[in-house]
Each structure stands twice: as structure tokens, then as C-alpha cells.
């Protein structure tokens, strides 16, 4: 990847433009607006021709890595292949051109998409019904927690203001709970990386609204005590929330509804193959058990109908999968993860050796080469991640979960071939050998990317957050 160092603002030339608009035939003009309401000076925007825009963004795109570029073993992110038919469906003008407030009779096709998805997701998860309003996973969590609070409120049980969250949970769980006005109570993991049932028991009581669980959890481990946990939480009057970020290994194998979960969200941009778009748009539909379906319409968390364009893509994926292939998706994801896990445990510390689901965690290098470094510091997980970039792989998720200091969290997904996994394994071995021999190769990595490691400290200390700030420098 080559480096291209321009901002669109820097291409600006007086007298250029990139738009084409019709003539004004109405005989009105903005000057008719009172001066007191008009903008005194025009906004500073680029003045560029169409070709400038096309070349600029094409050049920018070439400094980016996507799923279509290469392997993305990013733990808890489920970077699976994004099928191209999905894009074609989402771009159909008969969907793309619909106004969200159009009369019911003129949007029957769009409604059918929601109904079809509702049924399909219910079948896959064992929940009774879904709301499609949430625009991302964290948004789904917040919506699900609102539903839990509303359930207790309707029963007149307003004392339930605490939510239990395992220490291995995604950061969004406690953050969503806080936004929902709930107090977070952390439950510890046991030595096997699972929720400690004995530690959970004393936390339960009449103030508990529920528990948020990720199953398999962020170590990729199936919470096998879930039956007992569900019984305990329900017994104390709380509800169970399922964080669907890690749904992929259960796709086609286990349904959250059958495990006793009352509320869950799905990330359509993970489990259901829609592209991440550099950080969104996603979609985080929330499913609920039968006794909570009535609450769904009362939780209005976004402007219109949620991210319809994303929902369309996911529906196309589900129809391609069908009832046969859905049963293989989760299993293949699990197979791939275990395959990598077993292939590298002689070079990377494997703190939890048991069978994993879609992802697993190494705790850094076995030999970090500290003795070979001039300053006595070996290569860290960050260094391994950066070195991977040189070999054309995206880095795994690093330093998460917080349970291990050198966490390196790997999730390969079911859409990668054995050859790709073998290439990755080979490179990871090579990196481990480099570390043992000369850790400085890793500590100075990446060497072959468009930029070297950026200075993050200065970025935060002296924030330059827009073009106008940068020219004042």
C-alpha cells in the first residue's frame, strides 16, 4: 500500500466545482429571506472538480484494509465475508427511494422485509419477536435494557436498579447499563474463565433487574452453567440479557431463547454478514421472549425504522444460507478457531486450553526475546499485532478481555479457507521466531504499511481535530 498525503480541502481551487444542478425556473431567490436569518459568510468547503473527488477518495481507499483485502482475525468482531448480492439488493431503487413515512399501502414490500426478518431471526434464536430500531450492537444493548426496566416498571417493581455484568464483558455492556440508568454490579470469572456461580449467588436479590451475559463469553468459552445461572436469576425476579456479539458460533447450533434468555440483541453486521463500513452502519435488532413482546413498540430508540438498508442485506444473506447451510455456519467458525488455537500453542501462551467456540485468547508470546533486546524489553502483544500488518493480515483484538495482560483475541470466522488459516499460522510462527531472535523487528513494526506507528500521545495532548486546526499549526 502506498502513502497518499492529501486532504480534499488541500485540492481546492477557486473557480472549480463538482456539482451539476438544474436551472432555477421559479423566480424566487434566497435573498427573500430576512437578512437576520441568513448565514453571514459561506461555509469553508472544498472547491474541486468531479475527477478530483474520485481520485482523492480512490487514493484514500488504497490505504485501507478490508475483508475483501485479506484475513481479519479480529476477536469479538466477526469479520466474515460480505456477500456481494447483499449490496445489489440494498441498492434497488424500489427500496432505496422509499420515504420512511410513506403510507402503509405503498411500502408493502418493505414491510414484508421486516416481517420476513422477524420470523427468520425468531427461528434462529428461539425468541418470540424483534424490534429493528437499534442501529448497532451497543444500541441494541441499551434497547434491551430499556425493555427489562420497562418490564419491571409495569409490574410496579421499581426497586430493581442493579444489573449484573461479568468482568469479561464487552465494554459496551457496563456503558449501556449506565446510559439506561442502571447500577453495574460486576461478577467475577472463575479460574476457568467462566462466570463464578458461587460469586453470583450473593449478588442476587430484589434490587437486581437482570444479568447481561455473553455466551460464549469473550474468551470464546461456552458458559456451561447457564442453566443454573438462568434459574438463579429468574428465581430472584431478574431477567437474562444475551449480548449477541458472540452469536456466530451458535448460529445453527444453539438458540439463546432455549437457554433461558429473555432479551437479546444480534449484530447484523457480525453474524449476518453485512459490511462494517469502517465502523458502521450496523444494525442491532433486539429479540424478546413472549412475555415481553408487548413492550417492543414502546421503546422508540431511533428516528424511523432502524437501518433498513442493513436489514435488507442481512435478509439476503439468510435466504442464501437457508435452513441447510445455517446449521454449518457456527460449526465451521468454531472449527477454524480451534484449529488456530491448537496450531500455535507452542509459541503463544494459551491460558485456557479447553475447547473454544468462535474465538480464543492467547496471553502473549512464550518467548518474547527480552534477553535479546538492548533494553531488556521483549516484544509485546501490541508488537505482534503490528508485525502482522507487515504480512498482509489484520491484527487480532488486543488487550481485551482485561483478564489477561497480553491478551491476543483471535476470531477467524467460517468464511476463511484452510489455506488462509495455514498462511496465518505460518506467519504467526515466523513472528514468534523473530521475537525470540530479535524482538526489535517486532517493536519497530510495522515496516511495510502506508504509515509507521503514529504518535498517539501527541494526538490526545494537542488535539488537531479538523482541517482548519491543522492549517493554524
Amino acid at each position, binding site marked *: 500500500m502506498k502513502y497518499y498525503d492529501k486532504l480534499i480541502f488541500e485540492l481546492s481551487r477557486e473557480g472549480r466545482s*463538482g456539482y451539476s444542478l438544474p436551472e432555477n425556473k421559479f423566480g424566487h431567490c434566497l435573498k427573500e429571506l430576512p437578512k437576520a436569518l441568513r448565514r453571514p459568510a459561506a461555509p469553508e468547503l472544498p472547491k474541486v472538480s468531479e475527477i478530483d473527488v474520485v481520485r482523492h477518495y480512490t487514493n484514500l481507499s488504497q490505504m485501507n484494509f478490508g475483508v475483501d483485502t485479506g484475513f481479519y482475525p479480529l476477536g469479538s468482531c466477526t469479520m466474515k465475508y460480505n456477500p456481494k448480492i447483499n449490496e445489489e439488493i440494498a441498492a434497488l431503487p424500489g427500496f432505496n427511494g422509499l*420515504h420512511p413515512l410513506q403510507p402503509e399501502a405503498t411500502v408493502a*414490500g418493505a414491510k414484508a422485509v421486516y416481517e420476513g426478518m422477524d420470523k427468520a431471526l425468531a427461528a434462529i434464536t428461539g425468541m418470540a419477536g424483534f424490534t429493528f430500531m437499534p*442501529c448497532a450492537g451497543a444500541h441494541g444493548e441499551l434497547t434491551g435494557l430499556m425493555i427489562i426496566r420497562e418490564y419491571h416498571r409495569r409490574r410496579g417493581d421499581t426497586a430493581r436498579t442493579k444489573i449484573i455484568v461479568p468482568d469479561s464483558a464487552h465494554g459496551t455492556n457496563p*456503558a449501556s447499563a449506565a446510559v439506561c440508568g442502571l447500577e453495574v454490579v460486576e461478577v467475577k470469572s472463575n479460574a476457568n474463565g467462566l462466570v463464578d456461580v458461587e460469586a453470583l449467588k450473593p449478588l442476587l436479590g430484589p434490587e437486581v433487574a437482570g444479568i447481561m451475559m455473553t455466551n460464549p463469553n469473550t474468551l470464546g468459552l461456552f458458559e456451561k452453567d447457564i*442453566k443454573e445461572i438462568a434459574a438463579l436469576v429468574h428465581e430472584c425476579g431478574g431477567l437474562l440479557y444475551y449480548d449477541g456479539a458472540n452469536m456466530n458460533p451458535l448460529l445453527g447450533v444453539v438458540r439463546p431463547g432455549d437457554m433461558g434468555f429473555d432479551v437479546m440483541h444480534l449484530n447484523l453486521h457480525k453474524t449476518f454478514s453485512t459490511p462494517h463500513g*469502517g465502523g458502521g452502519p450496523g444494525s442491532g435488532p433486539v429479540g424478546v421472549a413472549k412475555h415481553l413482546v408487548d413492550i417492543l413498540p414502546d421503546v422508540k430508540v431511533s428516528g424511523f425504522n432502524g437501518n433498513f438498508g442493513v436489514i435488507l442485506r442481512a435478509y439476503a444473506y439468510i435466504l442464501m444460507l437457508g*435452513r441447510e447451510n445455517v446449521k454449518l455456519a457456527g460449526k465451521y467458525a468454531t472449527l477454524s478457531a480451534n484449529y488456530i488455537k491448537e496450531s500455535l500453542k507452542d509459541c503463544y501462551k494459551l491460558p485456557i486450553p479447553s475447547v473454544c467456540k468462535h474465538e480464543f485468547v492467547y496471553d502473549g508470546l512464550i518467548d518474547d526475546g527480552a534477553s535479546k533486546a538492548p533494553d531488556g524489553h521483549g516484544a509485546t502483544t501490541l508488537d505482534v499485532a503490528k508485525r502482522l500488518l507487515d504480512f498482509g493480515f489484520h491484527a487480532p483484538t488486543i488487550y481485551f478481555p482485561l483478564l489477561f495482560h497480553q491478551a491476543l483475541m483471535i476470531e477467524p470466522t467460517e468464511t476463511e479457507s484452510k489455506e488462509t488459516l495455514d498462511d496465518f499460522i505460518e506467519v504467526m510462527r515466523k513472528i514468534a521466531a523473530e521475537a525470540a531472535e530479535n524482538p526489535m523487528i517486532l517493536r519497530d513494526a510495522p515496516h511495510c504499511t502506508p504509515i509507521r506507528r503514529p504518535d498517539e500521545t501527541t494526538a490526545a495532548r494537542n488535539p488537531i481535530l479538523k482541517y482548519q486546526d491543522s492549517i493554524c499549526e
Partner: protein
Amino acid sequence: MGTFAYFPHTDEDIRLMLERIGAGSLDELYGDVPRDFVFKGEYNLPEAMSEQQVRDFFSALEAKNTKLKVFVGAGAYDHYTPSVIPYITSRSEFLTAYTPYQAEISQGTLRYIFEYQSVICSLTGMDVSNASMYDGPTAAAEAVRMILACTKKKTRVLLSKGLLPNVQKVVETYSKFHGDQIDYIDLEGGLTSLESLKKELAAGDVAGIIVPAVNRYGIIEDYSGFADAVHEAGGVVVEYCDPSALAVIKTPADWGFDIAVGDGQPLGIPLCFGGPYVGFMACRKDYVRKMPGRIVGQTTDSEGRCFVLTLQAREQHIRREKATSNICSNESLMALFVTVYASLMGAEGLKKVNCLSFSGAHYLYEELLKTGKFAPVFDAPFLKEFVLKPLVPVEKLQKKLLEGGYFAALQTEEGYVSFCVTEKHGKEEIDALVELVKEVEQ
């Protein structure tokens, strides 16, 4: 096992992989899952379709929708999307990338977000923009918590009744669960009332207010005196804006406000039945550490200028329950729509878009009044959207328009009907709409 286009596993691969793992079968990998939780039934899903069948399936659904000439706004505006936008935004390097945490291989995403932040700051006049939020209404809802974080001892946030109904509803939903007290500022003559605001401010507990730049009736608000009143009372002012309109009307900065939120949809994003759109949030420099969401900043590597995600100590993956928000994934790709759109249009193009919309809307307004089927409601300046009082039954009016292929005359709570005109609608289309209206009987 049959083959499937998205699963590259051959029987041989599976065998070899299981061998390395030391497992006898795929099912054995689920040995830790209690048996009664493994789903044994048939999934109630259709049989797998071929790609062509999927295409036919959606073509059939698409045909059940009616593509209308859209003369309604109410938070989703039918502006033209230049062809460069889908061309660029569908490039897989942008489309299939993850959040740019690995800056070394994400300079494309980071750079366009930095440009997006610059565009939003230019349009709003604010110092700092975040990298995007879900949509306009959720940005407003997040602004409530930001207001309260900026003014620790005050407890109440006021919303103008002129905000779009869906914005009010989403703010109410978030606030109800977070436990924030929301009250309203009344309207007078279709405009947010300074008098009503002052009455509320007198209570001394107002942390801030959210007011629309262009309100639910399409009226451009005059906020002379608002910033001073709220600031004197120790509060913060948030303006909910249509960023396209901000190219020609006074910005929140011009009014002396502190935070700008809204939906970027009018900047090149297709209607798409309500989403994906993109919420934006921008603020004065002093408030940046209270702002939710990701932010991209400029820095250097050993070679020179580059870009990174910065000020992450505000975010959920670092602060967990103490974060400024729970937002993680946002609407990054939609921010690219906005950035490409703003680059193509420039200030001049945006001004022309507004001028065409304004002119078309005023032409329609006059022509509709001439039909004698409407009475004016407010005597206040509007941009591209307006309301009228229908003198004919609304159902008949809407039915007639619909038969003619128009989505127009959306009924408001008060029984008015609203219209919106953008640059996409030429004079012929408007004239034909007016002809249909003339045929509506009592």
C-alpha cells in the same frame, strides 16, 4: 456435505483440521454445551436459494412498494445523490473495513472521518465534531446527557415543542430510562417562545435546552436573545439542525450556541425507508471531553502527517460504565457519503440546492393557496418545508395525490398538512401536483 459459496471448507479440510484439534467430529467441539441446549429440530427458514432466486425474491418485494414523487420531509429529505457517492462508498476498501483502530492500515477511513469532522465544523461553525452517531434523534438524546455532564448542578433539560415529533420521542425514551427530567418550551406563532423559555429558566434548575434551527413546521427560527438568556442562567444551548440548510441560514455558532446536533441525511444520503442515516454532533472546544463518540485527530509518525482515533479516554472500551456514552459502532460509511457530497457540492453547490428548494417550495406554497383549498397557518419565513391548513378533507387530498404518484400533504398532529420541496422537483412536477389538488372536492 454439499458445497456453499460462502463456506470454503472441503471434506478433506474438515478432516485435517479436526485431526489437528484432536476431535472426532464437528459436534464434539460442542461437547461443553449441555445436550438439551443443542437445537435438534429443523430451523423454520426457507430452503437455501440460489443467488438468482434471491434476486428474484427481492425484485418481487420491490415491486410491492410504490415509488412516489416525494414532497414530504419531516426529518428525511429527498435531495439528489450524485453518482460519485455510491461509486466511492461501495469501494470494498471502505465498505468492508472495520473501525480504524489499526491506524497503519486504516489511513483511508481515518482521513475521510477527519474531513467529515472538518465539513461538520464548517457547516455548524463549531470547533469540534465527533466521527458520527446513529441518527439525528439519537444525537439529540445523547446531547441531553452531555448537557447534564457540562452543567453538573442543574437537573432539567428543555426541548422546544418545535422539534420534530420523532426527535422528541427518542429524547423522551432515552431520558425516561436514564432518569433525566425533560420539559418543554412552548411555541408562539409557530416559533419557539423566548418568553416561555425565560419563565422556565427562572426556576434556576435548567441545565440546557435543545431547539431546532428549522422547526417541525419548516419555519426558520430567529434565536436572538436565546443564547444570552440560557448562558446567564448557567445553561448550555443545543441546536438541532438540517446541515444542508446551514449552508445558507445562520449557524448555531452565529446564534452563540454551544452544541450542534442533527441528521446528515440531507447531505447525499438516500431516503432508504429511514436508514442508514448519520447523526452528527459538534461543540465548542471547552466541551470536547464531555462529547460522546469517536473522534479522529491529526498526528505524526516518523515520516510525517497521519491520522488516528484520539481522546479515547471518553469511550466505553476504556471507561466502561463511566464513559460519556455506550456508543461503539457508529455510521462511519454514511459519514463518507456526507464528505463526498460536501466535496462535490462545495459551498456554492449547497447554496444552489437550498435556493432551488426554497424557490420550489415558495412557488408551491403560492400555487396551493391560489387553489382555494388551503388557508395559511403561520406568517413566518420558511426554507423548503411548510404547513397549510387544508379546507378540503385530508383523506381525499392525500388519496388524490397518491393516485397521481405523489407523497405529499403529510398530516400533522394539529391537522395541518406539510409539504417539502427539494431541488429534485422541477416546475412541471409541481404544476402537476397543483392540478391534482384542484381536482379534490369537498
